[in-house]
């Protein structure tokens, strides 16, 4: 190849190449994408297969080419087929054995293999703005492909048509800011270097992309290497007196080093590097310096010292590298992506560049979207795109039905951004305002299974290992912070430790010499800022809510259960066929297993480790099995009361919170009276949850057990004045009246005949009242009450039941099994629609006017806020409308001295001791937290019982719950066998078929048989035994 001696020769070459390419483009091009991840997924084998087959079948109209990675990380190997007329098809998840079919069906018969192709509407394709990544479909090892696509035209333009100052001005006008993390304006930096004294200057590329979770620089190095060569040459020209540049590339990127090296050699061959470039007299060459495995060498001064062959210790600034950098000469160090943007800015103009982005953050940014997200990949979006759009729209949200928790951005120097801030635009300023930094653009998505304290610890372990050791704040401060964090995750932390941690964090951040130490505390500071309660849970409650910090627990199921039920224990007993013992073990911590085994929302199953193999253990169903067994065999468990005590305690409300508090207190020997306003006991278990989920005769059996322990439950006994209880000799009161008041929607027509509130409706039906529903029922809402109401309405004779929910289906708070059961029964769920008016005739409901909703920005719960689409109103005929849009406590019976009530109607009480503002009065369950779950109410009841006991004994009310009077029950210590660890899905839980069950209120879920229960219990991994090791 002859050196290009002028711009004319370059342009002539472009013509020649284009002629060649246009011939090639007449054929069908098969481009195999060969980035590092593609190769590790077998892309080379796919390439070889295509080459082999095409040759052996003599398909002369097809040409097989190599290309770079296009960022579809978890769908590798990826192949793009470009047909001269029909256009582009992208295939993903290809393998050697799939190649013949692609060739036969697509290439030969012309029919795309739909099941392997990427949908052009796929958000990963549609929602990106490809600029930096625009050459990824080319072969990076072939400079001519780059040249054909305006390659080196920007350099030619700069050298022949622009003055160096003009180049800098254009970069300035574009608003390019450093893409490595700090976002410093590139033109400003170049100006400093240009103005510095000296006639020997350097341009350096920072390719030491060390942030875990960030690899976009690698993708550009491997896929668009010439953009860096060209960018640095332009920079060298703009700054002046630069004849040599260096690209520092971390050693962990061998393919990137190889590709850039090849690109540099080719550029030299073509005369685009070296002396007298394009005949203009401009001289510039580029060398690669491979790193040797030190994160700190990504720091500017450390990197430059490393190039000099020394230990990568950063140094104080000033003097800044712009004046004294590499070899003490003026130097500009810019990130890979910054350099990569330069040629296009010069060629296409500053206006083109700044046409996207925000006012202060122009252009696009490549981001690595990784972690707990459906579509992991390398995406390029305009700066200012919201986090929520990136994670949910492009990323497809969180897999496995888990809840989003936070995004970690900026690597170990960055921070976490929680769910309340999903609307945050990803740009330099907005992210910094939240305490994080944008950094190089690695976005690690974390879900409910990530512990933020553990995340902070993880990052500190990293920065401690990578600290160069030169300055004391970093060298000694980080390990000290790590020590404190480790104490906290070990369950040994105190609140003083937290204060010390914060103080240390501030000190290390402000006193360290370089960016590593200065930003090392960020993960701690942001997690403390946004997830303080998680730290406090570790310290005060000795609990890791995400169930990650192993020293705090044995088995994850037990730890996440609000009452700490010994799940592995009773599952093991069931496995051993010892059903009664299993029931007795359950009863040590949970007095209402018949009910809970039917209606619990089972957080335990959400953390079950068996799910990593196939499915979680059917913990709830096994609990029901054991409880059913005991009751069916007359083996109900009544604990022995050791010693009767004289104190009298009043409990207001016989729901799950009240009943469990009563149980615990009665066990201790106290005199307990429960005052229940309704004619039945059980609270929501009795009057909320429908019969077909929890038969009332089942519930009543276990309420009888509570009474047998000596608890006096008085029905039809509302308490009008809590004060009077104290006068009647009760020494402490537990207020557990729940949240039974339905929220009204506030739309016209609500007082028509045929409009019900869901809570009232369910209660009336459960109490056996004669409630008539019409033929066509509309239920408004998306929670468990809505589903319960809908399924009850069907059983009450409605011909059609429609659920109207204003958000998207995935946002419905109801339990998934219930939603599925409802749909099986023929209930129709309409999403993104909301009623605006209920219409009636003669005072009776005859229709509902609805409006369609459009989800827009995210709210604090991480769901998109729905907005009415004006003009999309439509009317549907209904004769019954039931509103299930929320419920709140009714605390009008409380006198106010000392007890405060929030705007939502909930009683204010200490979250851990449940003490209200009035001595001797405690509150817990839904009346305290707002509508929540049964098991949480039970846990609150136990917490209240503990506080009341301490109160009556004159002890301090401490946050940790202690429950006395356990009967020690032996649990077998049998680990699962090899066979039991083999893949085996959960035993299906039987249900009466939908067609049969909708005509009655019979219990729909069928129990396991003894054989089935033992089989399912045998899948348990005994995490509690493993933890002991």
């Amino acid at each position, binding site marked *: 190849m002859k050196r290009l001696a002028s711009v004319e020769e370059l342009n002539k070459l472009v013509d020649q190449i284009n002629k060649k390419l246009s011939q090639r483009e007449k054929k069908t091009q098969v481009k195999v994408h060969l980035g*590092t*991840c593609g*190769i*590790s*997924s077998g892309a080379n084998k796919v390439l070889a297969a295509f080459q082999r087959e095409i040759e052996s079948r003599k398909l002369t109209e097809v040409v097989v080419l190599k290309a770079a990675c296009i960022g579809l*990380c*978890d769908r*590798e190997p990826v192949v793009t087929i470009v047909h001269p007329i029909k256009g582009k098809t992208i295939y993903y998840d290809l393998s050697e054995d799939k190649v013949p079919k692609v060739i036969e069906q697509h290439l030969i018969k012309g029919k795309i293999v739909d099941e392997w192709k990427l949908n052009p509407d796929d958000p990963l394709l549609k929602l990106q703005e490809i600029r930096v990544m625009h050459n990824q479909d080319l072969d990076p090892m072939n400079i001519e492909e780059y040249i054909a696509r305006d390659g080196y035209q920007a350099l030619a333009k700069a050298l022949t048509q622009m003055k160096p100052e003009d180049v800098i001005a254009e970069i300035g006008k574009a608003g390019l800011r450093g893409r490595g993390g700090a976002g410093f304006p590139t033109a400003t930096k170049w100006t400093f270097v240009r103005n510095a004294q000296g006639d020997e200057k350097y341009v350096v590329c920072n390719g030491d*992309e*060390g*942030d*875990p*979770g*960030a*690899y976009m620089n*690698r993708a550009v190095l491997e896929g668009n290497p010439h953009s860096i060569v060209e960018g640095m040459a332009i920079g060298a020209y703009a700054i002046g007196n630069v004849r040599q540049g260096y690209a520092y590339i971390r*050693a*962990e*990127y*061998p393919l990137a080093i190889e590709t850039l090296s090849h690109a540099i050699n080719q550029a030299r061959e073509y005369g685009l590097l070296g002396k007298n470039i394009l005949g203009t007299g401009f001289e510039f060459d580029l*060398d690669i*310096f*491979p*790193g*040797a*495995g*030190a*994160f700190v060498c990504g720091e500017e001064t450390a990197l430059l010292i*490393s*190039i*000099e*062959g*020394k*230990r*990568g210790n950063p140094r104080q600034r000033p003097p800044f590298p712009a004046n004294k950098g*590499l*070899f003490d000469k003026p130097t500009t160090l810019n990130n890979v992506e910054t350099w990569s943007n330069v040629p296009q800015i010069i060629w296409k103009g500053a206006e083109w560049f700044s046409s996207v982005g925000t006012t202060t953050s122009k252009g696009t940014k490549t981001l*690595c979207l*990784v*972690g*707990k997200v459906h579509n*992991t*990949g390398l995406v390029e979006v305009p700066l200012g795109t919201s986090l929520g759009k990136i994670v949910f729209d492009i990323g497809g949200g969180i897999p496995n039905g888990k809840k989003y928790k936070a995004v*970690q951005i900026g*690597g170990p120097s960055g921070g976490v951004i929680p769910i309340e801030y999903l609307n945050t635009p990803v740009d330099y300023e907005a992210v910094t305002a939240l305490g994080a930094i944008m950094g190089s653009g*690695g976005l*690690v998505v*974390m879900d409910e299974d*990530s512990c933020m304290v553990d995340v902070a610890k*993880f*990052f500190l372990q*990293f920065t*401690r*290992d*990578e600290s*160069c050791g030169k300055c004391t704040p970093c060298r000694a401060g980080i*390990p000290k912070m*790590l*020590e404190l964090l480790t104490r906290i995750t070990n369950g040994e932390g105190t609140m003083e430790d937290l204060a010390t941690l914060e103080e240390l964090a501030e000190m290390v951040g402000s006193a360290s010499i370089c960016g590593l130490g200065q930003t090392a505390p960020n993960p701690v500071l942001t997690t403390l800022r946004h997830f303080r309660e998680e730290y406090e849970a570790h310290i005060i409650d000795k609990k890791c809510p995400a169930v990650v910090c192993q020293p705090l627990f044995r088995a994850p199921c037990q730890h996440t259960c609000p009452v700490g039920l010994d799940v592995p224990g009773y599952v093991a007993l069931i496995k051993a066929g010892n059903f009664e013992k299993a029931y007795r073990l359950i009863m040590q911590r949970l007095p209402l297993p018949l009910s809970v085994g039917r209606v619990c929302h089972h957080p335990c199953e959400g953390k079950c480790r068996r799910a*990593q193999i196939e499915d979680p253990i059917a913990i709830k169903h096994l609990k029901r099995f054991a409880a059913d067994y005991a009751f069916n065999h007359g083996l109900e468990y009544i604990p022995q009361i050791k010693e009767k005590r004289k104190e009298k305690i009043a409990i207001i409300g016989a729901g799950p919170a009240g009943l469990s508090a009563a149980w615990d207190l009665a066990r201790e020997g106290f005199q307990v009276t429960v005052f229940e306003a309704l004619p039945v006991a059980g609270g929501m278990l009795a009057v909320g949850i429908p019969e077909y989920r929890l038969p009332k005769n089942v519930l009543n059996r276990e309420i009888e057990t509570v009474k047998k322990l000596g608890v006096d439950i008085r029905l039809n006994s509302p308490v009008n004045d809590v004060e009077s209880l104290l006068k009647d000799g009760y020494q402490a009161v537990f207020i557990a009246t729940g949240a039974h008041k339905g929220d009204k929607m506030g739309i016209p027509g609500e007082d028509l005949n045929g409009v019900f509130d869901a809570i009232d409706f369910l209660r009336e039906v459960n109490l056996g009242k004669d409630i008539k529903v019409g033929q066509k029922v509309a239920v408004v809402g998306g929670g468990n009450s809505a589903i319960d109401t809908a399924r009850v309405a069907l059983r009450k004779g409605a011909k059609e039941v429609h659920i109207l929910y204003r958000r998207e289906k995935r946002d419905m708070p109801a339990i998934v099994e219930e939603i599925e059961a409802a749909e099986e029964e023929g209930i129709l769920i309409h999403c993104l629609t909301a009623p605006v008016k209920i219409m009636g005739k003669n005072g009776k409901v005859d229709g509902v006017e609805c409006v369609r909703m459009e989800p827009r920005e995210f709210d604090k719960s991480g769901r998109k806020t729905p907005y009415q689409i004006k003009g999309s109103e439509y009317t549907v005929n209904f004769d019954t409308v039931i509103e299930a849009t929320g419920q709140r406590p009714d605390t009008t019976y409380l006198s106010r001295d000392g007890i405060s009530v929030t705007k939502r109607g909930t009683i204010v009480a200490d979250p851990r001791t449940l003490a209200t503002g009035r001595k001797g009065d405690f509150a817990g369950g839904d009346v305290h937290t707002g509508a929540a779950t049964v098991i949480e109410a039970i846990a609150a009841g136990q917490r209240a019982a503990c506080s009341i006991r301490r109160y009556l004994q004159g002890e301090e009310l401490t946050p940790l719950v202690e429950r006395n009077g356990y009967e020690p029950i032996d649990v077998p210590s049998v680990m699962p066998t090899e066979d039991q660890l083999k893949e085996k899905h959960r035993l299906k839980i039987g249900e009466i078929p939908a067609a049969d069950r909708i005509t009655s209120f019979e219990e729909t879920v069928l129990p396991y048989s003894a054989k089935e229960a033992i089989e399912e219990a045998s899948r348990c991994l005994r995490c509690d035994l493993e933890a002991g090791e």
Partner: protein
Amino acid sequence: MKQAVETKPIKEEASKAIDSKTQQQIKKIIEATEGQAGAPIRVLQKAQGLIGYLPREVLEIIAREMRIPLSEMYGITSFYSFFSMVPKGKYVIQVCLGTSCYVKGGQKIIDTLKKELGLESGGTTADGRFSLQTVRCIGCCGLSPVLAINEDIHRRVKPSRLKDILSSYR
């Protein structure tokens, strides 16, 4: 106070004589990098590529030929994690503990490997077959959790597959 920091002692092998052929090769490497920026690091990289690791004797040769104090060569060697003064196994297993790999279960993988091979991180099996290391981000986060064995990158690794993966490396 309990020491939470794991310090890895720099172990040294018993004195190893460097044969003259290798000495010549090292000298050639030094000559080839003369005048290049960062020559000491480049020489160490190439020398380690040649011998597999950097015994003290090699550092002495390089120090002598390049007229750099041995302490400085040692300082550079001990600073960069890529340099090793102890021989590595035939297959070097690098388990990535970058953020994405960590969030997706990387810790369980290294724990399982430690148990399986009876090694601590940084160690080598007695038969010289495997060395085990953690690394902080290979840059294939889209495929996490990831581990590399020499040049092979294994993606979406599950602890249950580890035995199979190891057995293919003889």
